[in-house]
């Protein structure tokens, strides 16, 4: 009985720990804010007030909706192009060796460095923001897909060859499912990097979105609104990451990979 109580307490503790750190964070934040002017370093109270303000006038929801739409457009575009390309490059060693230098040169260039060109090519508005998010998602997905295909145990391919599976069957029924867990890692990383570059993308002359909300707040020296925007981006990023993970577990179970 005592042991059971202890276990329950332990479980409760596990649940409470993250909340505890958030509360502590809020407390320290409030404490520091006490020493600075609210215009320079707004506390959680001011930030929350700003959040309620934009939530009430509806601009928050429009901006969230627009940002999410841009993010998913860029993300889906990246995975639609990067996964098939990665599968192709992973399967054909000579092709991969051919384009590998190109990938290695393009990859370290920050998507933000593309922004002047993105504006030049796509003007202002949705397109450059989507392009920046697309770039941020593309390389993680491409590289992990190539890697996932190349690290498929050779015995799977031997079995496919042995049973006389054609190339289409081998790709669809062996290579894609075998590489799937690896590809999923890329999709994870891409959610992170893509969402991080959302703000940067939306600073390129966009007139809406969470990034724009922050830029606009800066123009009016509304530091409380800047922090509110950052907070929303953080929480939404967490929510998206969590949902991708839930989706992965769901598919993983269907795939028979446990988890």
């Amino acid at each position, binding site marked *: 009985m005592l042991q059971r109580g202890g276990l329950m307490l332990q479980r409760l503790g596990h649940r409470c720990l993250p909340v505890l750190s958030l509360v502590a964070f809020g407390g320290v934040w409030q404490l520091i804010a006490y020493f600075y002017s609210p215009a320079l370093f707004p506390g959680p109270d001011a930030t929350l007030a700003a959040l309620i303000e934009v939530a009430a006038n509806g601009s928050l929801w429009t901006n969230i909706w627009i940002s999410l739409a841009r993010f998913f457009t860029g993300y889906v575009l990246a995975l639609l192009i990067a996964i098939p390309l990665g599968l192709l490059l992973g399967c054909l060693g000579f092709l991969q060796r051919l384009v590998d230098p190109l990938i290695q040169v393009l990859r370290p260039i920050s998507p933000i460095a593309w922004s002047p060109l993105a504006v030049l090519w796509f003007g202002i508005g949705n397109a450059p923001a989507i392009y920046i998010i697309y770039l941020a998602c593309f390389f993680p997905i491409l590289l992990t897909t190539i890697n996932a295909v190349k690290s498929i*145990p050779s*015995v*799977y391919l*031997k*079995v*496919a*060859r*042995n*049973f*006389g*599976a*054609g190339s289409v*069957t081998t790709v669809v*029924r*062996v290579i894609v*499912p*075998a590489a*799937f867990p690896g590809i999923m890692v890329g999709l994870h990383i891409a959610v992170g990097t893509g969402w991080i570059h959302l703000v940067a993308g939306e600073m390129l002359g966009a007139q809406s979105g969470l990034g724009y909300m922050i830029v606009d707040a800066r123009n009016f020296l509304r530091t409380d609104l800047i922090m509110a925007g950052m907070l929303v981006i953080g929480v939404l990023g967490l929510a998206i990451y969590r949902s991708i993970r839930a989706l992965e577990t769901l598919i993983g179970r269907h*795939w*028979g*990979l*446990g988890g």
Partner: protein
Amino acid sequence: MSIPKIVAAGLEKRYRSARGVDTLAVTGIDLTINAGEFVCLVGPSGCGKTTLIQMMCGFEHPTAGRLLIDGAPVPGPNPDHIMIFQDYGLFPWRTVLGNVEFGLESQGMAKAEARVRAQETLELVGLCPAAHKHPHEISSGMRQRVAIARALAVEPSLLFMDEPFGAIDAFTRLRLQDEILRLWEVKRTTVVFVTHDLDEAIALAQRVILMASSPGRVQRIVDIDLTYPRDRTHADFTEYRRVLFEEFH
């Protein structure tokens, strides 16, 4: 009376390492394996028994000599000659049934027909209760039986087994040996079985091909004149063990 299934003459395989150094994996292999025969390749690691079976299955190509199966050279892997691997080669994303269906589907069999045939084969190896489980949910002994079922489903004339029970515990191993013999007596498939376990070879094979290393070659071929099922504790069995054992000294 006996029809040769596999004929090897002066068979040789050289590998070239990245540094350009040649190693002779096997050399001067002269061998005939008859249709319906159960043959074991036995030898210490590095004797080229895996190389030899890989060449027979078409995953590797000989660098010299001749290798004929059913009177024709081996251009590559063939669904009539199925290899069973030590690490099973089961697809973790497919169920037991799905794994058995894979071989049939690969040859263009209709989905419904493949399902029926796969179920029949699972029944043959006694795995029907596990049909809808995934490989990670079953024991290693069961996994290897799934791999055997997947092979038998496509009704190959030739079965290659590369240390198939090497990763399986001793008790399960004995049961699987009996199981493979039972299946062989039903199907009369030609079986080439690689092992480094002398007892396993004596329990299973009609002929044991002893191999020696550096370079890999056939050292001696021993006919095992014991009736099936074999009594592993019988004096004749131990006598064969002594004969084979002494070859390695």
